[in-house]
């Protein structure tokens, strides 16, 4: 058991990062090129931090409020972004993230300005994080197993086709944004309730690239992709001093190598190979059936 205790902080960090990655994953899954996750995480974190540190509200209420805030902001983003695609969407969401950070710096009476907010009571436990990640995974894999998953696949591959089949692009994008926002807000609050203090800097480019890298590394289709990616990104720096000191280099190399050589990501790449085997088996079975019925 002492093994577990020794690595608990790492596990907690992994779970939080997995949550961020899942938030980023939802929008990319649906073909939306949004990198707004750090901004929504920041909104969730500040909402929870203000409630917990200044008004004594417990993590339950704070997390619920942060999730709701994230959902609303995510949905609100989907409205103006409905008209943009590709790099334009990415830039717009980047502008949103920068706006949130700038606001956190500027609105000192509310957000504490550059030093941020501290003295946040630590009320988040490993068990709590596990439950939240499990619940998120359940919701997202439910989506994958129902018609929403097929629709997201279609939107990601060829939006024009989905539209020509009468599928509402805007509705499903808004859904993806709202879900991504809710998850981001939730885990922003959980992080705030874990690290005692938050400041605007931590939601910038570094979080953006790490989260994105986790999703690309693991895969954008299966729900286990971002979790695997977050796990790798969190544990890799622990494997060696030089890895920890050169986080950016490692992340950057992973990102570049994966997108060139394994663009599906690790998990999706493996699943794809398994699916091909299954499909081939199903095909052989089907053709066997046809041969049998063809015989007199």
């Amino acid at each position, binding site marked *: 058991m002492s093994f577990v205790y020794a690595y608990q902080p790492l596990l907690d960090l992994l779970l939080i990062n997995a949550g961020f990655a899942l938030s980023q994953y939802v929008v990319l899954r649906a073909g939306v090129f949004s990198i707004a996750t750090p901004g929504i995480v920041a909104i969730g974190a500040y909402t929870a931090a203000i409630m917990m540190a200044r008004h004594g509200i417990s993590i339950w209420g704070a997390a619920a409020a942060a999730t709701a805030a994230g959902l609303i902001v995510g949905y609100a983003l989907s409205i*103006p972004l409905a*008209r943009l695609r590709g790099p334009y969407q990415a*830039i*717009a969401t980047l502008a949103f993230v920068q706006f949130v950070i700038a606001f956190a710096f*500027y609105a000192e009476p509310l957000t504490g300005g550059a030093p941020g907010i501290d003295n946040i009571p630590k009320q988040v436990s490993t068990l709590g994080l596990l439950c939240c990640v499990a619940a998120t995974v359940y919701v997202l894999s439910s989506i994958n197993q129902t018609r929403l998953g097929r629709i997201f696949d279609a939107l990601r591959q060829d939006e024009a086709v989905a539209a020509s089949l009468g599928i509402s*692009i805007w509705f499903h994008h808004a859904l993806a944004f709202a879900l991504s926002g809710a998850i981001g807000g939730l885990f922003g609050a959980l992080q705030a309730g874990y690290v005692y203090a938050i400041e605007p800097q931590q939601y910038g480019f570094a979080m953006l*690239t790490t989260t994105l890298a986790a999703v690309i590394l693991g895969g954008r289709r299966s729900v286990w992709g971002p979790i695997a990616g977050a796990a790798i990104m969190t544990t890799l720096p622990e494997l060696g001093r030089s890895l920890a000191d050169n986080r950016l280099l490692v992340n950057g*190399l992973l990102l570049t190598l994966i997108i*060139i050589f394994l663009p599906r990501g690790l998990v999706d790449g493996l699943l794809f190979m398994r699916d091909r085997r299954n499909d081939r088996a199903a095909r052989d079975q089907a053709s066997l059936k046809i041969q049998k019925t063809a015989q007199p």
Partner: protein
Amino acid sequence: MLAQQLFNGLVVGAVYALFALGFNLVFGVHKIMNLAHGAVFMIGAFAGLFTVNAGLPLWAALIFATVCSGLLAVVTELLVFRPLRSTTEAEFAFLIGSIGVDMILVNIALRVSDARTLRFPFGIVPVEPLVLFGLRITPLQLIIVGAVVFCAAALAWYLHRTSYGRQVRAVSNNERAAILLGVEPRSVYFQTFFISGALAGIAGVLIGLAFNSISFTMGEPYMLRGFVILILGGLGSLVGAVTAGLALGMVQTVAAVYLPVGLSDLIVYSLLFLVLLVRPNGFFGDPVADARVARR
């Protein structure tokens, strides 16, 4: 005095324009949004600093930085962008790949500089300001304006008066047709990336001189400013990049003087978001077919 601030802003804007020109050139010709551009800019500044520290004069530093950054950009194209060119979702892959390269370069610079902020040696440029038309103009400002005007003019001459430039414009217009007409695409890639990197390198040295600081993080705010310029001026429009760059420089400098700190950032990012919604092509750019989703 307002006129003085406007002039100072114009000089800063000139460097923004130089930065944006390089970025826009690559996007306009290859439809690649190269997020590593900021890192190339930063490496150029470092290259210039090392040249000067080795005892060489400033003009040598500028040349060395130009060549260094240009080659760096070319290497990036060869190793990262070219393999991604023929994949599905190439646009997305380019963005991710360039983020990876950015992270690698920033990490290298971090190691080399030991995370310190470096400076050009004092006196490399005479400091005594001249007084012209009632404005205080430092020799550095003259150098900056001169360098930018020279580069912009050289670029315009190259694109519109040489056969190389004609080929670049042909590829920008329609790559397939250009290849059928005998244009060698690889030489065009080399040229555009080299020029793009070279411009970034010069901008890096100039900014390093102007603000007397060179650090491994200096590329990030320029990338963000770069996005604002790109969207305002129109992705792919070189005239737009220059105009928007100058405008942003002036607006930002004046705002920094007359508005409380942090508010100018908020305004800039809100402006970016708004322009994306109303006119994602900016004021000068080509209408981009997929920027919006509605009946065309």
